[in-house]
């Protein structure tokens, strides 16, 4: 990927894939409660996709300056499977790991190229993914780790 547009197209596609993934798990989820949660995750990914489409159209700026808090929760949790009777804890783990992987991808790419508009865009995307990861990690800390 060389141009900014190519990068953004890739990122947009990734968000759509994530949205599709959650919808698929939602279809297979055994309880109405979990279905709703997973569909909410899917909506969240579609919202990210919209932001990136706006960035591509020049209607939205990615802001790389702000440091995003890293709760480091996902770093030390095991991989879980998206089974049919997935629990909320597991759904959050899958989500935060996906975001972490995306963040890592963009920040690694940004690290390997010299100063340029492209580098800025990659760093901006990395920060976006970090924000998404923070959202899921905060939910985890709030709800799953409630008594801990």
């Amino acid at each position, binding site marked *: 990927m060389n141009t900014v547009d190519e990068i953004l197209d890739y990122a947009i596609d990734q968000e759509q894939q994530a949205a599709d993934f959650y919808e698929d798990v939602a279809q297979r989820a*055994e*309880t*109405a*409660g979990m279905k*709703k*949660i997973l569909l909410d995750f899917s909506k969240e990914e579609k919202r990210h996709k919209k932001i990136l489409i706006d960035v591509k159209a020049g209607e939205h700026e990615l802001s790389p300056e702000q440091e995003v*808090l*890293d*709760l*480091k929760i996902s*770093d*030390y*949790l*095991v991989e*879980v499977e998206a089974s049919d009777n997935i*629990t*909320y*804890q*597991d759904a959050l*783990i899958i989500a935060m790991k996906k975001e972490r992987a995306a963040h890592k991808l963009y920040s690694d790419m940004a690290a390997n190229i010299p100063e340029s508009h492209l580098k800025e865009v990659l760093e901006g995307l990395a920060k976006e993914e970090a924000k998404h990861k*923070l959202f899921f990690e*905060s939910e985890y*800390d*709030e*709800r*799953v*780790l*409630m*008594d*801990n």
Partner: protein
Amino acid sequence: MINLKDLLSPFFVWQRAFEKPYTSIRPTIDRPGAPAYRGFHINIAETCVGCGSCHEICQNHAIDMVAVEEYLGREGDSGLRPRFDYGRCCWCGLCVDICTAASLRMSNEYAWISDDPTVFHFTAGVDDKPWQDNENGYRRAEGYHLYPPKRIEMEMLPPEESIRSFDEVARGYDEQQAKKEADRCVECGICVATCPAHMDVPDYIHSIRDGDYEKGLQLMYRTNPFPATCGRICTRRCESVCPVGILGEPVAIRWLKRFIVDQVDASDYKRILADTITENGKKIAVIGAGPGGMSAAYYLRKKGYAVTVFETQESAGGMLRYGVPSYRLPDNDLDKDIDYIVSLGVEVKYNTAVGKDIKFEQLLENYDAVFMSTGLWVPSSMRIHGEDHARVLSGLQVLADVANGRDPGIGKKVAVIGGGNVAMDAARVSRRFDAEVTILYRRRISEMPADEEEIHESQEEGCTIVTQAIPVEVLKADSEQQVTIRWGEAEMVDDPRGGRARPVLQEDRMHTDTFDSIISAIGQGSNLDYISKEMHDKLAIEWGKFTPSEYQHTTLEKVFVGGDFANRTADAISAIEDGHHAARGIDRYLNPAAYEEK
């Protein structure tokens, strides 16, 4: 003959007309009251909790408690404020002396002239008065109290003794101590609103003062069939709003409840409580013989329903028996509560699992209503690598083993992960098995959800609490009988979204420690496998928990729920009230004619 002086005196008097008078036209100006004068009342309405002690103590009945809109519905506040009648007040200051919140004081203002007699009734601190911000005037003297601010100490077993057995740690009040403690109650009733079961607290405390323990027992059973239990392990929200606790220590409501029930022998319950049952021919199934289920069973039975309780374990009690250790709640006392409920003719089917031994759908078919209260029995997993090591045990399992008289097999050096009551119980139980205990909690002590008393006692009994400690990996140790945990120190960071502070792992401050076992007690979830998937959807369960509507009703007509998996407070008293409330709900559902407006 008239004296010349007398004849001329009127003319001498007239010269006074040109002198400055000795009297004043307006005698009230410029003569302030002394700095500690007992003048007109000031109440800091924000600090006042409306306990009504001023109203009680006023010898002239000059104070009425009146409802004030902006304070109604506040936690720990009656919503009332004192209204003074200056036609009756003698400004003795007793109201200021007894004020539990130190909100009532007097200004040094004493002049108030009006030809409208109704203005002399006013609500201090609410009705605008010119002396409200007066710095002078009478205040209660520092250290002067009309009731003892400190509570009567509960004798506890010293820690070096308590860890040698499972004997009850709190020894209980004797009669003299109980009466003294009962005397501290100002009978405001604010506790009643806060108690989830709305127990008649001031009334049963009064029964201690009267020495009428039978009356006290009757009062308690109106709202709570587990007084021996709650008198020992209740979370006592009542005490957190007791106004006596504002300037001193709250009244020891829990210990007083325990005192009453300890005075009455189980064999006298039947005579004293005189529960007469008129069978109404309807049948209710209760799933779970914990505090929620048994409370529902009690109140349903009193209303004449035939009740069958299905319980998977071999004894009733639920978390009270298999979770709370006996040094906090002795088996005998739990049995006292349960035996009475069963004695009313409640049928309990032990060792019977709904979903396996009998289908949930069969209960729906064979009974007129079903109450579910199966609690939260599934320990949450940490989801870290190596968690499936054989030496990683669950806190709930350790407690259940001990309750069943089995050795939990924890070894001599134990790490407990978690900060709730189960973690504290597991830690203190481990001390009683002579283990060295380290508690690892990911946040600060102030954020631990466990009861403060439990945290304090676990430290007294020799448990080491390491705060801001995040476990990241479980590793094999050199010996198979041991396990190693890798954990890191955490820094607390403010949540950018405004939630509570979050612990962030510091990867350059990691530790590795080896233990004989790691006890994980980080949270609990429900197991609702006994309901089919279709039922799940009909019952609107979210995150494994129910959100019942009024009267504990679910979206399924015959089904009511209560207890830990259906409320946010997750304590025994809430489960007990949920059971009682469901009984009311079931009666309304099955017997609506009785509730129709005539």
